[in-house]
């Protein structure tokens, strides 16, 4: 407990159980806020949302066996998105480990490939030190989830406590300082480029490099695109903003990546959803890649100049390097390049047509408008996630919270609960689908009982929409296993849990519904009955180059 306080923990998400009764008992005597979830998966997603909104480590506490296995999806999601979370799991007493005891599972073994690191604490004397290490690992370098397994006898034992010093791990020293010469080489290349593009990722958000990136791009007049995880790393309303890149990226972002002669990747990992057909990705460009994790570099695409380091520090230094340089010559070619991009934008913008039935894009646009772009948006996974990414323009970091790498349905609502606890004064909205909201809908009671004014906007098309879209486009419209017309009445569900339920079935009701929800200081579900067979466009079919988009 002392270590938790030292690490600045103020909120823990958890669910109790036999082997952690002692810990819960002690926790109850502190001022740490304990949030009792209704499913352990949601505890991790909530800690994840909390961590992203607040920029701190999220913490969970669950019991052994099923409590522990239920966290695996949440941990895997946090791992893929490099989110700092510490998960404490209870374990059967050390003497029973390996005996197939009641509620025993080898959670350290199970989570080895989806945690940054994990521990089984066998010696109570080592507990404090291990917990400090866990927090240190979770938040430093490329962040990630760390699991600490606590056998019941270890958490029951009484020791003479002394606060251990900040941890030093011999085999772990993240490389935050970028190499000076590499930065100088990078600047040379950037100044020579005629058609440069900056590609920002989650690393920009995690390292807090928003200001540095914005300054750099504006000074050099370089257009910026971002991965799903990088949204908010550069102002989404700036004239240099290209929109998101990749499978559902904007036409101009994908075209300019295809045409650019220099791509500056910052805090990205060149994931397959971004690159499309890998050997055609940015094929005319030299690539500079800044990332704190050396394994991200050269993993998927060949890099001209690799720079290992913290994005914020690297950008600061790059900004410094260009201070003394005369940029006139370098900026000469820029108007032509930006004109070309402007052309792509005006010929092929993001578009939809709002007729009699509510379009999901229209709902997201209205949410953007009525929250003035200032809300924290979490999403579920699928079409709802892509429309949120395309039509809500993020001007600030830490405002878009989504399960990017794992693509985990059921993420958005518990993450919104976590984000709302982290930022009580902010408007927090989960943009959801009718499919994924049902994956953690039991958490409604957590939002209601904690008096959290979280808003859920369900884009309800009675389909598992993204898979249905693939079926429409590539499987001859055979909608196997994706029709979920059989669904609960979400307004009644909200009411049953003590939340407020609202429904809009016609376009003219959308605005009014959102206004009403935003004015209600309670948990609200908005059920938007939208066009059933709407697709997310642009779309790059699997295996195609990102410049080969389906546009409608």
């Amino acid at each position, binding site marked *: 407990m002392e270590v938790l306080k030292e690490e600045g923990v103020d909120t823990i998400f958890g669910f109790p159980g036999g082997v952690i009764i002692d810990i819960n008992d002690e926790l109850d005597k502190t001022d740490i806020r304990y949030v009792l979830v209704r499913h352990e998966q949601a505890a991790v997603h909530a800690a994840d949302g909390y961590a992203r909104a607040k920029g701190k480590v999220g913490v969970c506490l669950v019991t052994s066996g099923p409590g522990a296995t239920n966290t695996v999806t949440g941990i895997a999601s946090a791992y893929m998105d490099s989110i700092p979370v510490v998960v404490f799991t209870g374990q059967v007493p050390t003497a029973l480990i390996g005996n197939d005891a009641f509620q025993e599972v080898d959670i350290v*073994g199970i989570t080895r*490939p989806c945690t940054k690191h994990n521990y089984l604490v066998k010696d109570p004397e080592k507990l404090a030190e291990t917990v400090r290490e866990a927090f240190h690992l979770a938040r430093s370098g490329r962040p990630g989830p760390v699991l600490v397994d606590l056998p019941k006898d270890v958490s029951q034992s009484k020791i003479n406590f002394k606060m251990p010093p900040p941890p030093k791990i011999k*085999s772990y020293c993240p490389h935050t300082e970028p190499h000076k010469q590499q930065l100088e080489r990078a600047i040379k290349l950037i100044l020579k480029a005629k058609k440069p593009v900056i590609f920002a990722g989650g690393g920009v958000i995690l390292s807090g490099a928003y200001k540095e990136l914005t300054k750099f791009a504006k000074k050099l007049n370089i257009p910026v695109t971002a991965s799903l995880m990088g949204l908010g790393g550069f102002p989404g309303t700036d004239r240099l903003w290209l929109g998101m890149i990749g499978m559902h990226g904007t036409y101009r972002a994908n075209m300019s990546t295809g045409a650019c002669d220099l791509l500056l990747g910052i805090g990205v990992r060149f994931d397959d959803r971004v690159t499309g057909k890998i050997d055609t990705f940015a094929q005319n460009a030299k690539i500079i890649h800044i990332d704190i*994790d*050396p*394994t991200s570099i050269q993993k998927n695409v060949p890099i001209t100049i690799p720079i290992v380091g913290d994005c914020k520090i690297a950008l600061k230094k790059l900004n410094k390097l260009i201070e003394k340089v005369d940029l006139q010559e370098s900026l000469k070619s820029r108007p032509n390049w930006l004109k070309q991009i402007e052309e792509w934008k005006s010929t092929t913008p993001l578009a939809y047509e709002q007729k009699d039935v509510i379009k999901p894009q229209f709902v997201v646009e209205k949410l953007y408008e009525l929250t003035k772009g200032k809300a924290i948006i979490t999403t579920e996974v699928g079409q709802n996630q892509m429309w949120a990414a395309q039509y809500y323009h993020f001007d600030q970091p830490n405002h878009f919270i989504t399960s990017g790498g794992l693509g985990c349905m059921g993420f958005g609502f518990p993450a919104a609960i976590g984000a709302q606890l982290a930022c009580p004064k902010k408007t927090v909205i989960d943009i959801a689908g009718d499919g994924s909201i049902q994956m953690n809908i039991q958490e409604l009671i957590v939002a209601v009982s904690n008096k959290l004014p979280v808003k859920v906007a369900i884009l309800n098309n009675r389909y598992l929409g993204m898979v249905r879209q693939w079926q429409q486009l590539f499987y001859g419209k055979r909608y196997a296993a994706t029709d979920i017309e059989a669904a609960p009445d979400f307004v009644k569900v909200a009411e049953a849990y003590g939340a407020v339920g609202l429904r809009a079935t016609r376009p003219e009701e959308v605005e009014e519904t959102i206004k009403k929800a935003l004015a209600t200081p309670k948990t609200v579900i908005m059920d938007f009955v939208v066009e059933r067979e709407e697709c997310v466009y642009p779309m790059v079919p699997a295996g195609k180059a990102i410049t080969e988009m389906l546009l409608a």
Partner: protein
Amino acid sequence: MTEERKHTISLLVDNESGVLSRVAGLFSGRGFNIESLCVAETLDPEFSRITLVTRGNERIIEQINKQLNKLINVVKVTDLTETEFAEREMALVKVRAKEEHRAEILRIVDIFRCKVVDVSPAYYTVEVTGSDEKIAAILGLLKQIGIKEIARTGAIALAREAKK
């Protein structure tokens, strides 16, 4: 894309439970292959040395080295293939020792500088140490006489020190 090559990688790791599983899990999880793997404690009981032999093109080997380095319990990764190094493997071979073959077996043992470590009326157990080529060569010869079973270690290796 460069050609696939065999690489011998030496790892210094924390000597604690689960570390081998982290290393092995990394290879299986990411689709890298392990041709052989040897582990034992070093002089300092806090650490173990893992010698592993893998195969891949330059890009894959770079990933393997980086991914291994990323494991918290891995203290040091050395790709010995980039340096001068001494490498040895050992095999125990149980050969059918019929009367008329015994002299031939001992001759082979002598030529290959092996040892006979167990003798029974029907079988000789031969210990052979060397490179995998040497072991393959002796296995080729002994196979003609008749091998009942074998046990092989993977390669262990250390970098050579400077000659001056």
